[in-house]
């Protein structure tokens, strides 16, 4: 009986919650910021940082080939600029939003 009751209780579903979170809400902004940071971290993990040598016209791993090096470098640069320019702005925006909502007494849950 207890098991049946337990199974009937609504469970927290991360995917549903993620899909239902408006992008411009504090939670949505934080998710975006973390997503960008995670993507940047992943590229770092794969060692794509060395390909930024394209900025000086240097191709650090000759075996990779110039075109592929340029592609990796460009990809890494995009993620880096996202990480240093966009992620922090999103986090600060989320913080300011939260503060303004609490001052103006708007419920975050309703957003």
């Amino acid at each position: 009986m207890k098991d049946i009751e337990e199974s009937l209780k609504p469970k927290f579903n991360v995917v549903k919650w993620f899909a239902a979170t408006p992008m411009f809400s504090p939670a949505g902004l934080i998710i975006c910021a973390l997503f960008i940071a995670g993507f940047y971290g992943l590229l770092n993990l794969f060692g794509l940082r060395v390909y930024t040598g394209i900025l000086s016209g240097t191709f650090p791993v000759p075996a990779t080939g110039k075109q592929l090096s340029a592609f990796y470098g460009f990809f890494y640069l995009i993620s880096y600029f996202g990480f240093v320019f966009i992620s922090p702005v999103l986090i600060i925006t989320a913080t300011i939003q939260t503060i303004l909502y609490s001052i103006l007494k708007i419920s975050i849950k309703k957003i």
Partner: protein
Amino acid sequence: MKRKLIGWVSFFLATIIWSLLFHLFFSSSDILQKEGISSHANALAKRHLKLWVVPKLRKLELESMRSTNAEWDFMGRSFLVWALANMALRDSSQKKEYLYVMDQIIDETLKLEKENTPYHFLMDYARFKPWVINPSRSIFIDGEISLMLAVRCFIKKRSDYLVELDNRVEIMVQQMKKSPVLSSESYPDECWTFCNSIALASIKIHDVLSGDDHSVFLKQWFSVAREKLIDQKTGLLISSYTQKGVHLDGPEGSSIWLVSHALSLIDPVFAKEQYELAKKYLGKSFVGFGWASEWPPSWQGPLDVDSGVVIPVLDIGTGSSGLAFIGAATFEDFDYYKKLRATLSFGGFPVDVDDSRYYAAGNQVGDAVLLYSEVLGPLWKKIRENNQ
């Protein structure tokens, strides 16, 4: 509606806040130490010293640079030797190790020059035209090798290097005197102030070491340069010209910063004037970041391999910005240097391996230039003192 407005206001405020705070995350405190060697310079030096001790690493590094520009291989060597000479003066306990690496670099460079001819370190177009001055020699090669030999011998004399230095200085002076603008060719019928000013610095150190006197020639060079090698619109030295003195390229960031540094050994007042003008026309800064353009607004020239990539809109010349470190360090412009370092930390992509550092966005020559800028000073100072 209210929420949307709050959202956009928050975003706008956040953008302003981050724009103002952003540079703080990239600013450095350990810059331009008057004595000793900063931890940053040490980390950079370790990477270079490792390259000269582990042949496999060096081969990989040189391959990647030479695939773009053979000059970089050569210049990386020169800047490293000049940096190590300054480091030997800053930290005498490491002098023996630094001298060992300097000798290794010099010996290998001389060997490559002898075996493969100086064309080994020149770009291919050096073969496409005849040289004007006979015998054909590149002052790019002679000047930088002479300066390597000169600074090495200034730290500790070595008789075979002194003989080599004597020969090269004699040849350079003879070649330069054959030109109405007292300049020798770096490439066929192409004289560069960059290379000629390095040659002049090596002649000066040679005089201090040997007791020879080229002071009249050096004075003449400055007088001719003031008269014939200055860009009328900016007052800056042009970067390249024919052997007869016909202007080719106007003032160029990837030349002038280093030129002002080299000339400061001989005529500090003129060199400082050039630095100030370069900063006025090429130096840029914004919210804590600094950089330099390749060309002044009045002279837009073609980009060459020395210019590196030029980032549009902000007009960031990567070659010019790299060499601006040397200008700023020479004239103790701490504020500009600090801003340049912030930009480097942001866009240079530092990679720390063990206790060594390199910048992924650059290459070995870029790191060597940076290292040189961090340790330069004691050598020029001591040479000036010995000259008096």
